[in-house]
């Protein structure tokens, strides 16, 4: 047994390295091959389990891991068996089934292995995100110049393959192994994750922690400048709101009431959003009976046009699509409507039950994130960066998500659950996941 332990202890740095490498490649979205890294994540999750199980005395934490992994497995199973079915897409389905729970699990295992510091994990993930964002920033500047979405808004049209396209809606990005046009919303997801490194700088000194400060600043600036040169005001606003957490944490953390008030306001906003979402769904379920002002609020406006099509499709033919729209990658315009709201995209991909479970997972993670802030021994800078990254991601995904990536190809459809940035965020969530441990319980007793 001791020999066995010795093997796992000796070699855990290998598994640590591999986890970091796979996560970094996923964050870089290397070659648009996130499904390959998803499968690699699955293999590493199995290996990580063996290592943690053999080195970690706290087996109860592993049991707690089953809860989020189980929820993610349910969602990914619905996503896998609904939609793609042929050729490489079947590999993609297997990858989806494996990748969501696996990336959460490898985040959790990496923390348990304890071979690298949290700030190192952040810098690896941030570095990879910043690298692809830097390519995007440089190529966007070369192709479009500064502030192009403002400068050219009156004459925004250029022609590609004979058809008119709007230059203010796109940016340049390394997509696969070549640069090309992507929607601003797509590139901005990477950029906002990088920019989320900036609030953490409030907690470190540029003199004492010079290197860490410079690297974090560089990652943050790459993201922020990318949003600024477009400029993508929506993303900057989302970033500002998420970054407010850093200010609150810095200046009001010794005032418990402040946290309660802000937490209450946050829950209130999320609750209102959910209520709106439920009412819009109910309206669709009863055949869009809301009239007058209610119809204008829940159906007939710029934001709700796309979602309404999805809601209608969801309840079409006696609920046949309640587990997700069949063959959602098709030429049917309803299915390819980009709603820009990840909750609605989930309805397309995994139906109403899958969406509810995923949203429940996110809310549960909100609770564990709160526990992480309160109980973790990580530095405030690390905690702030993790939290702002996660908050920014789900906020931007709620308001400005891009499922259709390339303007020149409306079939360049990357479902929410198959987006590489989601895998990265699930990894981060797994890394900060703090289930109750025996030690904590004893302390509590």
């Amino acid at each position, binding site marked *: 047994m001791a020999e066995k332990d010795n093997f796992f202890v000796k070699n855990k740095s290998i598994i640590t390295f591999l986890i970091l490498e796979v996560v970094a490649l996923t964050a870089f979205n290397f070659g648009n091959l996130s499904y390959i890294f998803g499968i690699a994540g699955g293999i590493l999750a199995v290996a990580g389990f063996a290592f943690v199980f053999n080195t970690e005395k706290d087996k109860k934490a592993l049991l707690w891991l089953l809860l989020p992994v189980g929820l993610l497995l349910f969602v990914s199973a619905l996503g896998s068996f609904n939609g793609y079915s042929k050729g490489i897409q079947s590999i993609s389905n297997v990858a989806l089934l494996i990748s969501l729970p696996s990336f959460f699990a490898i985040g959790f295992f990496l923390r348990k292995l304890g071979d690298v510091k949290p700030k190192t994990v952040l810098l690896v993930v941030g570095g990879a995100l910043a690298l692809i964002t830097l390519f995007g920033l*440089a190529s966007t*500047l*070369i*192709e*479009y*110049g*500064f502030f*192009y979405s403002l*400068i*050219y808004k*009156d*004459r*925004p*049209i*250029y*022609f*590609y*393959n*004979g*058809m*008119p396209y709007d*230059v203010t809606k796109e940016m*340049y990005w390394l997509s696969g192994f070549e640069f090309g046009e992507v929607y601003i919303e797509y590139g901005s997801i990477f950029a906002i994750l990088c920019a989320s490194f900036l609030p953490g700088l409030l907690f470190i000194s540029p003199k004492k922690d010079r290197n860490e400060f410079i690297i974090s600043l560089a990652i943050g600036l790459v993201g922020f400048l990318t949003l600024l040169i477009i400029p993508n005001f929506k993303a900057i606003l989302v970033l500002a709101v998420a970054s407010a957490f850093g200010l609150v944490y810095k200046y009001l953390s010794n005032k418990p009431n402040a946290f309660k008030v802000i937490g209450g306001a946050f829950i209130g906003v999320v609750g209102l959003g959910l209520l709106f979402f439920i009412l819009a769904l109910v309206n669709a379920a009863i055949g869009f009976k809301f009239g007058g002002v209610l119809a204008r609020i829940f159906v007939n406006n710029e934001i709700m046009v796309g979602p309404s099509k999805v809601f209608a499709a969801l309840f079409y033919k006696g609920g046949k699509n309640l587990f997700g729209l069949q063959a959602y990658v098709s030429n049917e315009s309803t299915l390819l409507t980009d709603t820009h709201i990840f909750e609605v995209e989930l309805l397309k991909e995994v139906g109403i039950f899958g969406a509810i479970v995923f949203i429940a997972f996110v809310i549960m993670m909100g609770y564990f994130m709160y526990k992480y802030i309160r109980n973790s021994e990580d530095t405030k800078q690390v905690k702030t960066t993790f939290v702002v990254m996660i908050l920014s991601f789900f906020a931007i995904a709620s308001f400005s998500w891009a499922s259709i990536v390339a303007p020149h190809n409306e079939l360049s459809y990357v479902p929410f659950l198959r987006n590489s940035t989601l895998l990265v965020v699930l990894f981060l969530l797994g890394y900060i996941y703090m289930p109750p441990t025996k030690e904590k319980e004893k302390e509590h007793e």
Partner: protein
Amino acid sequence: MNKRFPILLMSIFALASCAKTNRLYDDNAYNHAEFDLNYYLEWEDIDELNIANEYQGPKSDFSSCAYSSEDDPPHVVIGGVETEYTWDGEKETQFGYNNNLSKTEKKFSYGVTSKLFDGRVRCESLYQKSRVQLDKSGFAMYFPKQLLSTKYLGFACRGGTDYPQGQEFSHNDLNVNFEWSFYIHLNTSEYNKITYKLNNVKIPVDNGGNTTFVNFTPYFDDTFSELYGAVAMSFRWEVNDEEKMATRPDLTDDYTQKEKHHLALMLYEVFIGDSIWH
């Protein structure tokens, strides 16, 4: 020096930033409801090229066919091979989709002239946006790359007028002359010009989406065997049908005659077939 580096880098980006924003247009560019606003009148500065020699081709005859029915696509001889010419650019089996220049060279995909290289060879719903509306003065353009070789040349077009609906100038056989020139780079300062004159080509006018497809193999005299080194082209046309035009004295192919109704050439596709570019 270190402090200056980021500023220098940003300046380079700023100076370089022009590729996608060089030529931008308003929302309905070349697709306005008003006919006259849709003319493509760009004549790039090829007239400034120093032309050393001018040649005319082709020696062999060209072929043309009017295409009117999806169910009965015509067969044309392209590069000695009989090919079924069909119009739908979306289906893989079809001619435009398989042979468009954008598919060969991505650089042809950008700009208004990309309408001519996109594989959409006929007016049909969304494809109507793919037309380039020409006055008889035509247009001239530099290629984004240099042509090394091609096996055949061709184009798809129809006529269109600004008569209100119901008063179409519906002739399926209006005679038109075309003049298509290529500018061959010889050395740093000199160019050869090769012009193909295609006379009495019959084109449909205001007859639904019907188009005529014209093609020929670019054989020349002994001096040339191919269009090696072409860097630019120009394209002109004129009506050569006094009899039919006489039935509509209020109609002209001259865009500058504002008081009359206008007849334009709707050019859908230009084929520089099986070509290699540098």
